[in-house]
């Protein structure tokens, strides 16, 4: 499992793309928003947590098809299917690798980008915390979507259509927790619910994703 994780991380680093591109995309979304809604700092500060969440979610979506597609094409996935490691474990490791190269950098950079949107000081911490708890769910749900569409030639667009509705609960609770935290209100409830979604996704979705991959490899 660890060998698979290291292999995936190394591939992501050396092949480029994945992790730099996601961050660049996130930066561009953050920069574009003020052009769209105007430069008043009060407006920007109010919508900043939501924008950062939507931006991170879209940046995460961007690199999802890389989770299984290349391995499917060059046959690695077939080898993984016959390996002693159960497919559920392989899926979980691959989702973890995706999170380490996309979710984690996004989380770390979000407080920096938040400055561009005039987010007040307390907001930086809450955006960081909510993304830290929420992005693993995004990677895991995304891995499920990628597993469903891995056999398709142009599955990318279809995958977005499948994955985005599944992201809705995480986004609602995450953005709500970040907004409430920024405004100094109690946000333990949405935070706990989002953590619940993350924990539930990590516990259950590997089984669904592994089932989908087995069907696709048949």
């Amino acid at each position: 499992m660890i060998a698979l994780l290291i292999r995936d991380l190394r591939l992501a680093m050396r092949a480029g793309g994945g992790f730099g591109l996601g961050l660049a995309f996130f930066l561009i979304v953050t920069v574009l928003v003020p052009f769209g809604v105007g430069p008043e700092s009060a407006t920007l500060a109010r919508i900043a947590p939501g924008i950062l969440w939507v931006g991170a979610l879209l940046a995460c979506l961007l690199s999802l098809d890389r989770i299984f597609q290349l391995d499917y094409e060059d046959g690695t996935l077939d080898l993984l299917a016959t390996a002693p490691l159960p497919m559920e474990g392989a899926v979980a490791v691959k989702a973890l690798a995706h999170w380490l190269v996309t979710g984690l950098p996004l989380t770390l950079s979000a407080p920096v980008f938040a400055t561009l949107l005039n987010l007040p000081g307390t907001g930086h911490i809450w955006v960081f915390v909510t993304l830290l708890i929420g992005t693993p769910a995004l990677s895991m749900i995304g891995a499920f979507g990628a597993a469903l569409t891995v056999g398709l030639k142009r599955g990318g667009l279809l995958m977005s259509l499948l994955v985005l509705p599944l992201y809705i609960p995480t986004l609602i609770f995450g953005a709500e927790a970040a907004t409430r935290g920024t405004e100094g209100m109690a946000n333990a409830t949405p935070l706990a619910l989002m953590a619940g979604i993350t924990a539930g996704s990590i516990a259950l979705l590997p089984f669904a994703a592994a089932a989908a991959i087995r069907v696709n490899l048949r």
Partner: protein
Amino acid sequence: MTNAQRTKQADDRWNWLWEWANPVKFMALSGKVLPFAAAIAALTLVPGVIWGFFFTPEADKFGSSVKIIYVHVPTAMMAINIWVMMLVASLIWIVRRHQVSALAAKAAALIGMVMTLAALFTGAIWGEPMWGTYWAWDPRLTSFLILFLFYLGYMALWGAIENPDTAADLTAVLCIVGSVFALLSRYAVNFWNQGLHQGASLSLDKQENVSDVYWFPLVLTLVGFVALFVLLLLIRTRTEVRLRRLHALETRERMIDA
């Protein structure tokens, strides 16, 4: 299959039900049920809608706009129930591998999507005079929009995969996972915004129900929409079964040619 397994299968006390998963038997039964479903749908929908539209009094505060309830509520109810039916059919397909079950789920998706759209549109038309807006991010409206997205994704996945068995498996997995997330979204949306909708008005608890004048034609249309769904579902599933047979015949012909 070993002998022990065969005996076990023969002893299954649900066999009277699973028998109908045999496509030949299903076609025979559905052919007989079809006219009845059509008759029930016609006998309830036509009087129900006419009664509701022309022979109910106008409610205070609502005016004649209240009459859209006879389309809005049944379509909204069916939109959710059809998804539940798809979930059950998907589970049966995954557990027992009955082809008809997978085809029924596929056939139901489009009907469900149309019902969701109808509920959203009639709701928008009703919302304009009542709430002064066609659309608001009210929890129920939002949940229906999300449900619509789920139908869209489900059907897109069916359309994208060529191998019918792979498509049936993957859409079934999506339907199960999607159901969990649709339910989560429902509660998340409730949490996110307070609504404009009134509370439950059709529950069996009589306290806050609509008055009988509106209730009776509504029951008729509710039954009518269920019958209409059964009718459309049977027609569409029969078409799917026939398409599958056609495909098998074509493949066999090509095999003979080659």
